[in-house]
């Protein structure tokens, strides 16, 4: 630490240049922080999903609904504890730009397959007994200001009613929470009672379940049970593809392109740009100070100590820029209005930033540091 002043003053020797470099670093890390927060949103949305749930979809596509009669068949497969069916509703609330998912399910089976959701007993009973009932997650209810008893009209882009209309009215009978913070953060969806959904549909579509959600007795079984389910329906009209929930979600996200890959690609470009810029600053800063570094060696600083001084300078420069940029990014993600996706500067993002700082400091600091280390005193003093 006693070298701090030496490093600090060396860094701000050319104030303007250092300030510009720090600003560029800050801007880069602000961008990196946001990009990685987006990445985290997608990675995080599946990472926590356990392997104790399987999603059974039609082999061709999950948009192809499976028939209801398969449910008891799946439930008899050893290892399966409880099965529910789930149909993506694809509804739009008035002209809100905020999208949220709705699933038509069997209310009785929902909480057996998703014990992570917590709901009041009476509300649960009402969901089961109300044909046009719906329950909404706490965060979703809060963002629209919905209360129990409200009627929510949803315009489905997939499901047409038998009278030709696409407008479905759902009565909110309950609001559910998550069992912990992670799940609470995901209370941004809505479950619809399959009753009104199936009855209202055009007759041709009735009896179609969508996909099946199978909760397992033990998560270790997931691969074996998935294979059992698929082999049971092999060569039938309704061949299946069974994945755990995490794989299913990833597949769902991939629909919109590999977002993680895109974010990392842009992050890479940002890092590359800042690497060139900061690298130039550092090498320039050391080049100008060759005689001074030689004097330090004269005074008894060893070659390695001088190497470390330059590396520390590089690390300090990158750290300052990153701290400002990440600070801004964390503030921004913390202050997003509720109708934005829940971007968060989480541990994964901080870890990414930390590794980037270290890698960057090393990459831009090492070449000039090695040059400083190899510096021959007599040559440097004579200006050779």
């Amino acid at each position, binding site marked *: 630490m*006693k*070298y701090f*002043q*030496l490093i600090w*003053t*060396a860094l*701000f*020797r050319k104030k303007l240049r250092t300030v510009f470099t720090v600003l560029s670093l800050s801007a880069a890390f602000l961008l990196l922080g946001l990009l990685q927060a987006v990445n985290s949103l997608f990675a995080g949305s599946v990472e926590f999903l356990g392997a104790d749930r399987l999603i059974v979809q039609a082999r061709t596509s999950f948009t192809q609904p499976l028939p209801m009669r398969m449910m008891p068949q799946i439930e008899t497969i050893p290892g399966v504890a409880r099965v529910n069916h789930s149909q993506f509703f694809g509804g739009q609330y008035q002209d809100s730009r905020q999208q949220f998912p709705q699933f038509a399910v069997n209310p009785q089976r929902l909480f057996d397959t998703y014990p992570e959701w917590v709901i009041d007993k009476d509300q649960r009973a009402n969901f089961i007994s109300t044909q046009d009932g719906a329950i909404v997650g706490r965060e979703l209810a809060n963002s629209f200001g919905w209360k129990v008893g409200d009627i929510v009209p949803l315009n489905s882009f997939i499901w047409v009613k038998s009278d030709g209309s696409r407008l479905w009215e759902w009565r909110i009978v309950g609001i559910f929470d998550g069992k912990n913070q992670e799940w609470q953060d995901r209370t941004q969806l809505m479950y619809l009672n399959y009753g009104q959904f199936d009855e209202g549909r055009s007759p041709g579509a009735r009896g179609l379940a969508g996909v099946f959600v199978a909760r397992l007795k033990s998560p270790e079984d997931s691969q074996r049970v998935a294979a059992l389910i698929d082999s049971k329906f092999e060569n039938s009209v309704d061949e299946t593809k069974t994945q755990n929930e995490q794989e299913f979600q990833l597949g769902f996200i991939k629909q919109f392109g590999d977002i993680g890959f895109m974010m990392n690609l842009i992050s890479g470009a940002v890092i590359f740009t800042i690497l060139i810029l900061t690298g130039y600053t550092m090498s320039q800063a050391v080049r100008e100070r060759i*005689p*001074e570094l030689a*004097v*330090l*060696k*004269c*005074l*008894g*600083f*060893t*070659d*390695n100590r001088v190497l470390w001084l330059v590396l520390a300078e590089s690390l300090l420069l990158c750290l300052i820029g990153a701290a400002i940029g990440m600070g801004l990014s964390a503030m921004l993600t913390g202050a997003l209005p509720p109708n934005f996706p829940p971007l968060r500067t989480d541990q994964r993002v901080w870890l990414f930033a930390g590794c980037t700082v270290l890698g960057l400091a090393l990459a831009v600091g090492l070449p000039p540091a090695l040059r400083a280390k190899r510096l*021959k*005193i*007599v040559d440097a*003093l*004579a200006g050779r």
Partner: protein
Amino acid sequence: MNTSVSAEQQPLVEIRALTKAYVRGKQVVEVLHGINLDIPDGDFVALMGPSGSGKTTLLNLIGGLDSPTGGLLKVNGQRIDEFGSDRLAAWRASTVGFIFQSYNLMPVLSAQKNVELPLLLTDLNARERARHADIALQLVGLADRARHKPNELSGGQQQRVAIARALVSDPKLLICDEPTGDLDRKMADEVLTLMQQLNGDYGKTIIMVTHDPKAAEFARRVVHLDKGVLVDETTR
């Protein structure tokens, strides 16, 4: 008593058949051709000679900034010609102070912090380092300029800060390469008087390269170098 006498009789710097050659491309150029020289503890030697005669080269060898090609070089009882680079660095920190023609101060640090630099390599804490630097600055008469940056000081003052930096770790030996080369007569005389004082009152052994015969008059002894050999010596 006996041992201490024999220790005093041993010169501080002992140079035998010292050679130094530089490799330039495929060419090997010998710059020093077998120098023999003894410098006793407490001496003040002026090293004179034409440009390119090898004065700086010899001085750098004695100060442990470079290693000789051949011969023997013993300083303060140690064969520094056999030291590796890290050991040499530690040896320099404890034994030698350097004073250059162009002062070579850190432009961004105050006089005080410049003087403290060599102490960063010691175990002294921040307060002790500041105290030592204060004393050194007092010694060169610049205690009141401690907070000034080098560019806020005159050439003579900067050189005195450099002398304070060379002194602060209390080395036995001061190595000075044309210390007054950039100074006018008046400032040069101030600096030389200070050096004489350090030699007389504090027993520092000083080796100073100079082109200026007036500067050489401040030394106890003048050694002449020409084309890499010692040619002549005058003792005052």
